[in-house]
């Protein structure tokens, strides 16, 4: 049994690193002290080790629900907090602290020499702590606090180089758009509170849902609100446009926050409240939004030229995958995909950072031919891309395939939509990833940062921000080692964690079984296991329904593999052999191309149409008219009246403080005598 | 009067000798006094007067001894002989000086405010003498064992700032006023670390009583509270305006500051007050940090106490003999930027320790010697890094005087300082 102090320690270690870095190290050792990095690495490593223990404990003893502590206890409001250490939390613990640890190690070199090195590490520690707290919260309001902490640390890290206007704007955009989603989350919390404050405690909520105490309509509204929060945090359509801009932050930040951990918070939220979603009517909506996002984001990734943006769109697309999997009830495959995706996407981002280290730019047009100079980075990125594309036998294949197979099994309308969207997205993913690989690593070297800067100067454009120096060689081992670890995990994690048959000590479908069948507070045990007493009336979904043991569907796997291979081949044909000219294709499909390059003009829609025209021009103007013509006018008239009265009374004020005091004293005497005469 | 006052054996002895038949005395085993019943108030007054005279005389004797001792010891430090003519080893020199001072002409400056000018020495000396009343100079030997003894001491000594301000202002002398301003600023600044450094002791003892403080010291608090001792000692030096904080009466620069216009016995009283303050300060340090009259058995408690006081006074004289005087800005920044932080560190560490140590609140007992040793270990572990750190922070910023260069105006000032001790 994993004791509660240890669980708190997992969160407290990064908090300690944050405080130590933010106060002592920065004040006494300077803003560039390498000590800051080691402190954060040590703290996160501690959390990681403890997370492993937590996972082991949950695997052997089952979920541990630690006791509630009083947070606020006044009349009419009783809030508690505590640790909920179940299967979902244990896995998220390991993913978050593990990826975070690798990223921290990587950053030690990547951020070396940055003038706010200490600040970087203290923010990273804060983020890690907030994320770890988020996944282990027992109370919804506690969860919301961490949720916002995650948001603020994301804001701080996106805007880490705040001297760049674009970074500051991106941070603001990310914060505002996620806040928009959080508004829904907050409404959901308030609704839960109004239904029954007890339900703010998540185990109590599970119990209520399991007992059918929450009506479907109520659950629908709550789930809608929660899903709104998830949309914002996980950058789902239509609140997706902040994530590509968030690439203004350091690449290591993108690797940790905007691929592996924070953006999965939305997926986590849906998974955390999965029984509630199941009891509601929004599952189809979740699936459709996820499916749409998966295709929609992938399509934008097809034409992006910035390697980090390609990865960002890919992240959105893969998050859509997870969300749509949850939407069709495939709880276990969604989490499995979250698990594998964390490794290869973090690896890809770190690889992009490594490429930037060598070429000084993120723009793929100025890369090329880097394969010869950076073998380790190249191969790890190829492995990551293959895994992301979902090729056999890499981890992405297994997780993606489970989602598609489950969709196939559903045999419902939504299931078909999800399946087709998944296949299309797989094709696109394979294409854009290998487009990126080919443009970056193959062909001739196109000059890197210096050339990009020069071209910008020649074209009289402002110099692109964030350019470094070109020195083509492999990154230092501290950066490569995390890449190798992540690539290894991308190869083996998928099959070993959730194999199709018993592999040595690992049981068949170990991961899916772990997150579903063992998770009795959320899923009633299926026909293979023991049905707990009273489960007949239980409204909880059963483990099989949640995708614990999907059949390995060879046709689906084959089709998806073919799609992926087709994407790779198309990329090969376009960017290596030149059999299909990208230029000609772009010209022929110029309309689509420009729409994609313009990101479907969502930024313009939001900023120009909705905010400027809708809010500023229509709403604000009409309100302004009302304000001047009515409210102000009344005030002006009142003010005139007051001024006239005041002019008469002003003579009472002679400016002598003592006169006022005397009047006050006389007033006191009068009141006292009045009280003595008429009082009591 | 009340039971509390009769707890003091000194008081009881005198009081019950006068009025032995009263209720309190009978319970303490006294049979009969020479005043009839019903005249307890008279007995009380007589006792108070007797004790007051006794203690004031004691304090005066202590001061005379201190002046003689200081001159002798300083002379030793400076390789001189020192006063040696009058009395054995020159021990009557101070008496001779006192007589000389008394017979000088009493001058009041023309512009002076007579009322304040005459009142200032009184205000100066009374609080210092009152302090002697609460210090136990041996087992049960004190005038009043106030249960707020420490607070009383801090409160009563804070009045001396007013006396200095009065003396300075009423002299109607520019130099005296400037000196008085400095002195008041210094006194007010150092009162804060002084009071705060006692809080650490207070947390451990849980009482403000002097006797209680001594009883709690199974381990002397100089060992348990090194930071508290350091800060209190320095702050006390400043409050007594001793070297290196004696710039308020820096003879070489300010012509004895606010004492400038005083002469004859008024000067004598002011001077007495300052030296009595030194004795009182040493006594308080001995009581609070050196476990007062406690010691091992064959030697009586009074001797222990006097020995500790003499040791503290010797330390003070030693410092005077060896250290140069500080500038006013250095003195003030030491108080606010150095000692204040140190007391805060001490307070936090002590608070954590006392909270962590025992459930004293439950049984109301004191900390045992073992617990005190543990505290001492932690406190010493904190002592060195914090003193080093604060010292480094203080030393890192030299004073930048952008207005003028005083060294050029008075090139001899530094040399005078070097011989300042010899002028005594």
């Amino acid at each position, binding site marked *: 049994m994993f004791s509660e102090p240890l669980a708190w320690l997992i969160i407290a270690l990064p908090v300690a690193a944050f405080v130590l870095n933010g106060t002592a190290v920065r004040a006494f050792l300077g803003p560039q002290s390498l000590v800051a990095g080691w402190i954060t690495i040590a703290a996160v490593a501690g959390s990681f080790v403890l997370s492993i223990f937590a996972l082991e404990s949950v695997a052997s003893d089952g979920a541990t629900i630690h006791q509630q502590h009083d947070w606020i206890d006044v009349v009419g409001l009783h809030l508690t907090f505590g640790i909920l250490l179940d299967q979902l939390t244990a896995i998220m613990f390991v993913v978050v602290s593990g990826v975070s640890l690798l990223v921290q190690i990587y950053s030690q070199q990547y951020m070396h020499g940055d003038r706010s090195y200490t600040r970087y590490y203290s923010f990273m520690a804060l983020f890690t702590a907030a994320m770890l707290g988020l996944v282990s919260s027992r109370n919804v309001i506690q969860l919301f606090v961490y949720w916002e902490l995650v948001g603020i640390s994301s804001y701080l890290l996106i805007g880490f180089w705040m001297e760049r206007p674009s970074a500051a704007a991106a941070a603001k955009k990310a914060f505002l758009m996620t806040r928009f989603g959080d508004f829904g989350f907050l409404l959901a919390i308030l609704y839960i509170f109004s239904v029954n404050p007890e339900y703010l405690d998540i185990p109590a909520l599970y119990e209520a849902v399991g007992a059918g105490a929450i009506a479907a309509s109520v659950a629908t509204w709550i789930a809608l609100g929660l899903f709104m929060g998830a949309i914002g945090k996980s950058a789902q359509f239509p609140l997706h446009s902040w994530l590509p801009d968030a690439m203004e932050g350091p690449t290591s930040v993108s690797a940790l926050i905007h691929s592996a951990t924070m953006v999965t918070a939305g997926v986590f939220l849906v998974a955390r409240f999965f029984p509630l979603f199941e009891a509601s009517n929004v599952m189809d909506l979740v699936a459709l939004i996820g499916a749409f996002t998966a295709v929609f984001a992938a399509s934008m990734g097809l034409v992006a030229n910035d390697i980090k943006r390609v990865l960002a769109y890919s992240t959105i697309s893969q998050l859509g995958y997870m969300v749509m999997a949850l939407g069709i009830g495939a709880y276990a495959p969604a989490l499995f995909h979250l698990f594998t995706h964390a490794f290869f996407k973090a690896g890809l981002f770190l690889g992009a950072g490594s490429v930037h280290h060598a070429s000084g730019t993120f723009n793929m047009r100025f890369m090329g031919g880097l394969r010869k100079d950076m073998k380790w980075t190249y191969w790890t990125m190829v492995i990551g891309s293959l895994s992301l594309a979902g090729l056999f036998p890499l981890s992405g294949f297994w997780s993606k395939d489970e989602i598609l197979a489950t969709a196939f099994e559903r045999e419902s309308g939504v299931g078909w939509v999800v399946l087709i969207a998944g296949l299309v997205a797989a094709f696109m993913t394979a294409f854009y990833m290998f487009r990126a690989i080919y443009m970056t690593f193959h062909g001739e070297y196109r000059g890197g940062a210096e050339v990009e800067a020069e071209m910008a100067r020649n074209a009289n454009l402002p110099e692109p921000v964030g350019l470094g120096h070109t020195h083509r060689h492999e990154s230092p081992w501290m950066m490569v080692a995390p890449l190798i670890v992540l690539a290894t995990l991308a190869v083996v994690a998928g099959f070993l964690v959730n194999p199709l048959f018993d592999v040595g000590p690992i049981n068949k479908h170990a991961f899916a079984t772990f997150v579903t069948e063992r998770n009795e507070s959320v899923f009633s045990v299926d026909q293979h296991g023991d049905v707990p007493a009273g489960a007949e009336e239980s409204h909880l979904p059963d483990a099989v329904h949640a995708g614990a043991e999907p059949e390995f569907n060879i046709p689906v796997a084959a089709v998806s593999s073919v799609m992926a291979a087709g994407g790779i081949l198309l990329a090969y044909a376009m960017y290596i052999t030149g059999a299909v000219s990208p230029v000609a294709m772009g010209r022929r499909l110029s309309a689509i191309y420009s729409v994609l390059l313009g990101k479907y003009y969502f930024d313009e829609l939001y900023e120009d149409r909705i905010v400027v025209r809708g809010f500023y021009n229509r709403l604000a103007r009409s309100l302004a008219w009302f304000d001047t013509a009515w409210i102000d006018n009344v005030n002006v008239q009142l003010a005139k009246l007051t001024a006239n009265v005041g002019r008469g009374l002003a003579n009472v004020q002679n400016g002598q403080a*003592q*006169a006022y005091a*005397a009047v006050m*004293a*006389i007033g*006191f*005497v009068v009141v*006292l*005598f009045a009280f*003595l005469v008429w009082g009591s | 009067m009340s*039971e*509390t006052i009769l707890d003091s054996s000194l008081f009881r002895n005198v009081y019950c000798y006068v009025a032995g038949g009263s209720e309190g005395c009978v319970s303490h085993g006294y049979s009969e006094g020479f005043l009839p019943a019903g005249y307890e*108030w008279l007995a009380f007054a007589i006792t108070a007067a007797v004790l007051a005279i006794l203690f004031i005389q004691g304090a005066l004797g202590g001061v005379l001894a201190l002046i003689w001792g200081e001159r002798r010891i300083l002379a030793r430090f400076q390789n001189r002989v020192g006063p040696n003519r009058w009395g054995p080893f020159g021990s009557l020199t101070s008496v001779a000086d006192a007589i000389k001072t008394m017979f000088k002409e009493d001058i009041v400056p023309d512009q002076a*405010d007579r*009322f*304040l000018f005459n*009142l200032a020495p009184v205000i100066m000396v009374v609080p210092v003498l009152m302090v002697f009343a609460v210090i136990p100079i041996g087992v049960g030997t004190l005038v009043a064992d*106030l*249960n*707020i003894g420490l*607070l*009383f001491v*801090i*409160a*009563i000594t*804070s*009045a001396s*700032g*007013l006396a200095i*301000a*009065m003396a*300075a*202002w009423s002299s109607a002398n520019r130099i005296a*006023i*400037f000196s*008085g*301003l400095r002195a*008041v*600023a210094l*006194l*007010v600044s150092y*009162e804060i670390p002084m009071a705060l450094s006692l809080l650490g002791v207070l947390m451990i003892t849980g009482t*403000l009583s002097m006797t209680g403080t001594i009883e709690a010291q199974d381990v002397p608090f100089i060992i348990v509270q090194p930071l508290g001792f350091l800060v209190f000692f320095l702050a006390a030096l400043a409050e007594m305006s001793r070297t290196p904080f004696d710039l308020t009466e820096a003879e070489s620069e300010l012509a004895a500051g606010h004492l400038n216009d005083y002469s004859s016995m008024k000067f004598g009283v002011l001077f007495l007050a300052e030296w009595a303050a030194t004795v009182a300060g040493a006594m308080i340090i001995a009581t609070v940090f050196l476990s007062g009259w406690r010691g091992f058995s064959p030697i009586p408690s009074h001797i222990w106490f006097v020995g500790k006081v003499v040791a503290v006074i010797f330390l003070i004289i030693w410092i005077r003999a060896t250290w140069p005087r500080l500038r006013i800005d250095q003195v003030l920044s030491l108080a606010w930027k150095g000692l204040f932080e140190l007391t805060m560190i001490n307070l936090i560490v002590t608070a954590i320790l006392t909270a962590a140590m025992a459930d004293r*609140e*439950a*049984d*109301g*007992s004191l900390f045992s010697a073992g617990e005190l040793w543990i505290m001492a270990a932690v406190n010493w572990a904190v002592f060195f890094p914090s003193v080093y750190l604060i010292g480094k922070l203080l030393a890192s910023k030299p004073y930048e005087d952008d*207005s003028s260069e005083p060294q050029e105006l008075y090139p001899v000032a530094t040399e005078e300082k070097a011989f300042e001790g010899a002028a005594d």
Partner: protein
Amino acid sequence: MNEAFEVPTVVSFAFWVASAITIAAAIMVVTVRDVFKAAVFLAGSFIGVSAIFFLLNAEFVGVVQILVYVGAVSILIAFSVMMISDVSHGSQPSRARYASVTVSALVLAAIAVTVYNTEWTLNSGLTDPDAIAGLSGTFIEDEIASGEGRVRDASGIQASDSQVVQTGVLGDSTGTVGALLVREFVLPFETVGLVIVAALIGGLALMRPREGEPDPRGGG
């Protein structure tokens, strides 16, 4: 009239002496021309008030009064008088002297009438022996600390009950006031701390030399 609440004649006499000194000093404060002298009389008045506190069995408040008022406030005021040369020639009473006297006399009359017309519920009217024991006798300290124990008469205490037996609340108030400050009244206590910090910061901000003004450290 209970024995325990009877004020001894000596204390009564001392109270009148202290009050007379306080009032005389206070009158000097508001009438004397020289502001510095007024500050000295103010300190005298403070000491008189502190004596009154001691006579009212409020030793702690009395010492705090000396510490804060005599040790800090009056010194600060004297210090300011020395710094501000404007007041050195004295403070003229304003034209409204007689009006002020009238108003003050009115207020005093109001207070006096109120005080003597009110039926005060006095301690001396208590009949409950427990209450009297609690207010004037002795009780066990740790019971007070826990806030649970019943007050017991001094005679009821066995030696084994507690080593520390202290005089009743009205005898020795320091520990009890301290406990009150950090338990029941911790919020006002902390608030006062905040107020003091705010006042200090405000004072510093006000005293800061602004652009183009001479440094006040130059001395008045």
